[in-house]
């Protein structure tokens, strides 16, 4: 069944953060629902829609930015009390806009996630989870990593679930952790599945995966998870609602690349995408309901830049008579006229203010200080192609972005972008290895890029983001590229592989060694988790080699099947220790087999790439042959198949054009590192190695590595 939904824009407010909009419960059976939404200007707005016009119910005064919004009420009655969290304060409003609660919590940091149920408040700020009943502190839990979201599955026993950055859902009862459920990415949002079935929880991850887990007090089982056929943006919000009125609730998903999706279930209970719409900005909250017109369900969503919009099932042009169309046009017409006059007034006011600002620049006692504009950015490793995705989204149009890096990295454009890229010549004396400008087209608010780093080269990538806003200002964002930048956290490593080991002993504390490891590897919490022994496992997303880190007070052991990883770790850790004036005893245990093992890991993929390259070079020639002979009949089966897949192969080659070079680079590193541990410098033999690689033969390569 095809679903067509029509977009209606309701209102625009300030920048919204994740989960900041909810629909108020409907009053009667046929009534429309009101929308409660809070923005970063600190304004809570509640409005309804009458005849396509937004009619405000109430609006609060501006204040500190609001991070979360939730609805609650006395159990058993309609959930129509609005709770908002801003900084470390929670406020409650009735549906009429009367403030009935102002609760200054004892949290040191601002609240990042909130769930309200009856008179129970579940609040999270970065690493801390707090539970209050009637504003009285009940439970407390320190999570091992940043908490992204919290929900509570059944109130009487109060089992809460924390979505943590470390790819785990932590299931808590009161203050104690019962168990954890591992999900395939850092979970960013949780919601109860089907809205009522207590123990099933739907999660969305920041790498775009969606799944359902059944959580009990003993275990958590994965029921299903989506398999990503193509890369999708991170999930920011989820809801379950029966839009299609077929008796089964659909899943509504909003992502940070602006896509808005609806999943329905097939007969086997597996989710299938039924509808997709792409907005220009990321979707921060989503909910199904009935807002615009009684009897027509719709998906209500809020975007990052503050648009509230509905994707309604109501047809835009119904079978009604021609008079009706005119009516719709008239409506928008009046809206347009109203907006235009408002714009004119604003323009005049802005001109006046601009004048005053210019005036002020004459006197020298004053400061010119412009409030920063809001930016949503992300810099995450995508495991599929071992590159970082840099996403930048600004509340208003971007003028240009300057990227600067002090280490050599490669930047790939993403097809969706329409920005004009220009790479500038770099002067290495100012430690610039990358200078690139992205001049954006009008009305571009998002920019996405792929950044390819090389392990062992670490530094900072800086983005200077200039918005198209007067007075012109620019914000600097820094992204750290760590020495082992391509590593990703996993649960356990394959112990059967031949392992190299480096162990450190010395007079250092757990916190110290943790900070050193954090400076080496991504996806680790800033502060050391509780416990005396810490263990983390990683996987190299490019080579698929593993790394295990175990450390405690005064001792650290690192194991990997990749000798380069160990070499980089050893270098960085000793450097960090020297910085702090701590002497280390370093001992290495190198496995001779590990190098060949790593080469074996690279072998199939390198060979695939080489084959691909060979095939692609053949395509041109074969095409010419085909033309000469007047058809593909003259060619052998193999070549005919090749010609048929020509386009596909070329696409693939285009996508992975530098994979071979990347592999060659890692093999050369491996070669140098292997002999470094033996104490010989083999830099002079690298050209010889490259020669062998250019006439690739696996056995010759292995033999070359095994030469003394």
């Amino acid at each position, binding site marked *: 069944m095809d679903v067509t939904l029509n977009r209606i824009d309701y209102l625009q407010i300030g920048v919204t953060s994740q989960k900041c909009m909810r629909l108020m419960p409907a009053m009667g059976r046929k009534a429309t629902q009101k929308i409660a939404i809070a923005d970063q200007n600190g304004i809570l707005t509640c409005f309804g829609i009458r005849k396509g016009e937004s009619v405000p119910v109430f609006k609060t005064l501006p204040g500190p930015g609001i991070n979360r919004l939730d609805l609650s009420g006395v159990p058993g009655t309609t959930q129509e009390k609005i709770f908002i969290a801003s900084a470390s304060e929670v406020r409650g409003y009735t549906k009429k806009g009367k403030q009935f609660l102002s609760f200054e919590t004892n949290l040191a940091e601002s609240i990042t996630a909130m769930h309200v149920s009856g008179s129970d408040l579940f609040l999270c700020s970065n690493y801390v989870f707090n539970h209050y009943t009637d504003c009285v502190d009940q439970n407390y839990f320190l999570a091992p990593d940043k908490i992204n979201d919290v929900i509570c599955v059944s109130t009487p026993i109060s089992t809460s679930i924390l979505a943590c950055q470390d790819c785990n859902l932590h299931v808590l009862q009161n203050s104690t952790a019962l168990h954890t459920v591992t999900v395939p990415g850092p979970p960013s949002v949780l919601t109860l599945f089907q809205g009522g079935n207590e123990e099933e929880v739907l999660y969305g991850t920041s790498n775009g995966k969606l799944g359902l887990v059944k959580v009990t007090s003993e275990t958590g089982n994965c029921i299903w998870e989506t398999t990503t056929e193509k890369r999708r943006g991170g999930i920011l919000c989820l809801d379950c609602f029966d839009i299609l009125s077929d008796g089964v609730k659909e899943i509504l998903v909003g992502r940070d690349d602006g896509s808005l999706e609806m999943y329905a279930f097939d007969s086997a209970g597996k989710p299938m995408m039924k509808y997709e719409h792409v907005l220009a900005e990321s979707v921060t909250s989503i909910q199904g309901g009935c807002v615009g017109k009684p009897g027509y369900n719709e998906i209500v969503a809020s975007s990052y830049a503050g648009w509230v919009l509905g994707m309604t099932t109501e047809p835009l042009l119904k079978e009604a008579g021609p008079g009706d169309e005119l009516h719709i046009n008239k409506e928008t017409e009046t809206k347009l006229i109203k907006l235009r006059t408002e714009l004119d007034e604003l323009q005049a006011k802005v001109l006046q203010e601009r004048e005053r600002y210019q005036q002020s620049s004459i006197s020298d006692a004053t400061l010119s200080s412009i*409030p920063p504009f809001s930016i949503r950015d992300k810099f995450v490793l995508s495991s599929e192609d071992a590159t970082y995705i840099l996403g930048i989204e600004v509340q208003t149009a971007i003028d240009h972005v300057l990227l600067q890096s002090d280490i050599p990295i490669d930047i790939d454009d993403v097809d969706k972008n329409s920005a004009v*890229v220009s790479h500038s010549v770099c002067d290495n004396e100012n430690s610039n290895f990358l200078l690139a400008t992205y001049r954006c087209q009008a009305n571009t608010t998002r920019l996405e890029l792929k950044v390819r780093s090389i392990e062992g080269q670490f530094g900072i990538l800086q983005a200077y983001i200039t918005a198209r806003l007067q007075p012109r200002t620019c914000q600097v964002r820094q992204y750290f590229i760590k020495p082992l930048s391509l590593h990703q956290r996993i649960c356990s490593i394959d112990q059967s592989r031949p392992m190299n080991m480096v162990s450190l002993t010395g007079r250092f504390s757990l916190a110290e060694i943790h900070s050193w490891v954090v400076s080496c590897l991504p996806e680790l919490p800033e502060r050391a988790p509780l416990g005396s022994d810490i263990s983390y496992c990683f996987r190299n997303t490019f080579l698929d080699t593993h790394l295990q880190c175990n450390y405690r007070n005064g001792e650290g052991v690192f194991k990997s099947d990749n000798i380069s990883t160990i070499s980089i770790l050893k270098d960085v850790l000793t450097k960090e220790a020297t910085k702090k004036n701590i002497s280390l005893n370093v001992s290495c245990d190198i496995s001779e087999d590990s190098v060949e093992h790593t080469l074996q890991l690279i072998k199939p993929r390198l060979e695939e790439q080489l084959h691909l390259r060979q095939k692609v070079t053949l395509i041109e020639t074969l095409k010419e042959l085909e033309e000469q002979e007047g058809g593909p009949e003259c060619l052998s089966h193999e070549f005919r198949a090749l010609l048929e897949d020509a386009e596909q192969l070329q696409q693939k080659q285009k996508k992975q054009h530098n994979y071979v070079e990347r592999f060659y680079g890692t093999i050369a590193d491996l070669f140098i590192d292997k002999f470094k541990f033996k104490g010989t410098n083999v830099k002079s033999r690298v050209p010889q190695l490259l020669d062998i690689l250019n006439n690739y033969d696996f056995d010759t390569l292995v033999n070359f590595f095994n030469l003394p």
Partner: protein
Amino acid sequence: MDSDGVQELITGWSNGKVDVRNARSGEIMYKDNFVASVAGIVEGDYRMDGKLQLICCSMDGEVRGYLPRGSEPCDNLIDGQAELENLRELSQQRQNLLLELKNYEENAKVMDSSETMRSCRSPGIPANTHLESVLAVNPGSETQPPHVQLSVSTSNDTMIRAVLIFAEGIFDGESYVVHPDIGNLSSRVTIALRPPKNVPVDLHVKALVGYQSSTQLHVFELTRQLPRFCMYTMCDPDIAIVPKSHVILSISERVQRVAIWLNQNFLLPQEFVCDSSFLNVCFVCLRGSGSLSISIKQNAEALISTDDMDLAGDVIQSLATFLSISDMPVEAYFPAYVEQLCLALHKNMKQRYTELQNLNRDLLNSHNIRCANHMELLSDLKIINKIIQKAGRLRVGKYKTRVVSACRDAIKMGNTSGLMKIIEIGGASVQPTRPMPPSGLAP
């Protein structure tokens, strides 16, 4: 493209993007991506169905056609959509204005309390910060070749974190970035420019100004124009090496007007003033291609001496445009070029021409042979076909078709004796004696 009677601007990019824009607002109406660079964009009725198409071709040979959006169907719907789009845009504009307003308000708030805030770490910079820019010719040093130097500086202790220059035609891309190391920031940045051609260039300079630790910077934007002949520096006429070649023309305008032209088109350390009725200036090219001297005598006779004919042309064209001279005869004397021309004409060209002619004749001959062979081949084929047809007409029904097909098979196999036999006895299957490659009969 949208059938509204107004043409859209269509751009093809080296990264394979194709954009369709509203020519007035620059807004993108449609875009597509090719795998390779876009090689060409044309409009044409390729399918011969009376509808004009936009046709784009990429470097690797992919061709795509785009039909303009039809204007007839769902007229109303599009109208409605357009209005909604309009509404959205206006609302976004309002949001931007509100943001700007908020910026001023917040700024005013800070200003009121600025006396107390000065010591605090605030993202602000003094309100009277100005950005100054100076363009000058740098004759170069041992480490640096000569260039035009643009120096950008702030009026106080604020630092320049980076300078971006957007300009067309003088950099590899469209922009050039100077990003000093965070450790040696200063309030002054110098940029070396080397425009390769004698054309005026607009430099759109954006300087990011703030303090060392600021995460928010102010963007100062200014536009400077590089004069057409900025790569020429003035020197003393007495010491300059006089070029061998020159052009002589007559300029009836006052010499002062020419002085104004000099000031506008060259980067001079100070304004050039001419108070006499004659003029004599000399320049040296920073690209290292000799000198240029311009002198105007009292009798309005002007002498432009340079060994570079291109440069002389540039100077004359620019001067003529400036003085709004529509017709001007010029006497030119370029011994080096004349020599080259002679050489090309008399020796090289003649020789090449003869060689080319010989080659052409050979080509023509071989083509004629090919043609003749082809014609012969065709007539032979005709005879064979005729005979087969006749042989077929000797039989009736299925025997007729069998003979024809058997004959064809025999020809394909190159089985001549079999062919004779078939014509003689009919379509009995004849085993091929030896396989032959299929006959490629193309001329």
